[in-house]
């Protein structure tokens, strides 16, 4: 059950650029959060900016007291959070949302992160490592500066495969290039997990569909409440037995969705045709 309470900032670390690691005391989130879940959080109790912001939980402490967020200071809400000093309080509601589904036994997890989308995967990697599972992380960005968390992934058991579009770190090109190469060479069944820009997640969804794989994507639309009442963060999702898509709240029915169920931007017509024709493609 999510808890709504003030959460003091206990640690703040600047990672360079606009990136920060912020650790808050919020026992409910520390104890109950699962990889892929998020909190709605806002610096202080001031009027501006009005809304809390959703952030994926990056990690929780073993004592069940604190959790850490990976925050890029890019807007009013995130800048206010990153300007907090230890001891300052934030308003926090969490943990929220549907977490990632762990891969079934025998399947290997391939995590695909685009830049800032790394946030939920540190946590997922840690949990998989604890269960003795292996996972590979495909971590892409435009340049090396977009992969600020790369050296902070120790203890996660993740095999790292970085890629940058300018070639400044790892393989040159989009992250889907090494992803496809590893999929070609995989000896075990693979389950995909993706978080990053919409275009990247859509690309991973297409790769999964073409190869008959399951992919979970963590979507990040604008959120108002985090709890399913404002209906701002809806995404078009079509259930297995549904004749057409429905708007579903990313905050309560997501943010993690089966990529095959998501109706991606620009996909409306093809999806409608498939549904109308009763094709089997949507049912997996």
């Amino acid at each position, binding site marked *: *059950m*999510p*808890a*709504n*309470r003030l959460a003091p900032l206990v640690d703040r670390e600047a990672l360079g650029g606009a990136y920060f690691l912020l650790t808050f005391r919020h026992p409910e989130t520390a104890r109950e959060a699962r990889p892929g879940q998020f909190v709605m959080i*806002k610096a202080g*109790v001031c*009027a*501006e*900016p*009005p*809304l*809390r912001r959703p952030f994926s939980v990056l990690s929780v402490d073993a004592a069940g007291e604190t959790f850490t967020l990976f925050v890029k200071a890019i807007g*009013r809400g995130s800048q206010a959070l990153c300007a907090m000093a230890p001891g300052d309080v934030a*308003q926090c*509601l969490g943990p929220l949302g549907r977490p990632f589904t762990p891969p079934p036994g025998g399947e290997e997890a391939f995590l695909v992160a685009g830049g800032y989308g790394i946030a939920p995967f540190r946590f997922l990697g840690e949990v998989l490592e604890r269960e003795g599972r292996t996972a590979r992380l495909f971590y892409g960005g435009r340049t090396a500066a977009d992969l600020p968390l790369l050296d902070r992934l120790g203890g996660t058991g993740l095999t790292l495969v970085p890629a940058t579009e300018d070639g400044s770190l790892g393989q040159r090109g989009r992250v889907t290039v090494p992803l496809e190469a590893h999929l070609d060479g995989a000896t075990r069944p693979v389950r995909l997990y993706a978080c990053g820009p919409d275009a990247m997640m859509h690309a991973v969804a297409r790769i999964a569909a073409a190869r008959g794989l399951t992919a979970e994507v963590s979507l990040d*639309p*604008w959120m*108002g*409440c985090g*709890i*399913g*009442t*404002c*209906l*701002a963060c*809806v*995404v078009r999702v079509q259930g297995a037995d549904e004749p057409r898509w*429905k*708007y579903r709240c990313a905050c*309560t029915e997501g943010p993690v969705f089966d990529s095959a169920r998501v109706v991606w931007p620009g996909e409306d017509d093809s999806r409608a045709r498939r549904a109308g024709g009763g094709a089997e493609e949507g049912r997996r």
Partner: protein
Amino acid sequence: MNLAVEIAGIRFKNPLIAASGTFGYGVEYEGVLDLSLLGGIVSKGLYMEPRDGAPTPRIVETPSGLLNAIGLQGVGIRAFVRDVLPRLAKHDTALLVNVCGDTVDEYAEVSRVCDGAPGIAGLEVNISCPNVKKGGMAFGGDPRLTHEVVAAVRKATRLPVIPKLSPNVGDVTVFARAAEEAGADALSCINTLLGLAIDVETRRPKLGFGTGGLSGPAIRPVAVRMAWQVARAVKIPVIGIGGIAGAPDALEFLIAGCRAVQIGTANFVDPGIYERVLADLRAYLERHGTDDVNAVVGTLEYPGLPRPCDSGGRE
């Protein structure tokens, strides 16, 4: 100390009501806060049938406010009565249903369904949603249509009827009187202000629907002014809405003549707001030497009190 207020025969244990569209169907907050803390809850707007609502993006933050075009996405009144009402019954709070319709007949039909359902204390008639192509603000922007819808709902139900007025009119008192004459038992004042936010890079509206409704502290002075005008123009009770984020904000509306208030956008900012506002409200009453919140209602001292805008006609 008495915080209870009575409006149109409905007893609210305190004057704080969750505003339609900002509190879902109430049950979403089970476990996050004690719903019995609330004086009342107004449901998300409900039509006869489920609705998809507006295309995304649906909200954008503005200075001290929120511009939204959700477009009345909803489950429909029958699913609400079947699935949600039984869950709400265990909470000690007054439940109002926000009634929507594309046509006058649909408003009446939704109202009739509510009339036969247990646990509904009253109906708020949504004649002011700016984010739908039909119905909504169209009814709240023409006094004859306001009268027609309210009269039709009045005829369809024995429940208290509370039209929610639009601020997007020239003289709100004309609409308040039209609703009163049509048999309204109380009035909710106000819905969101019609607004437009533009993405200057793409030169397109920031919201998928185009225009949207502005809410939050940014609109509070407008809302207080309109609620005050309406309270002076009609004999029926008024429920004030608009940018309430703390006890002083709620008190502005009460002092302006409202019998109760609704909290809207602030629910998103802090679901724990009710506990805080109630504590601060009690402290205020104590400080002002009264033990009854009703003693504050309509106590505005306005030097040389001018009459509200003369209701000569519409814009």
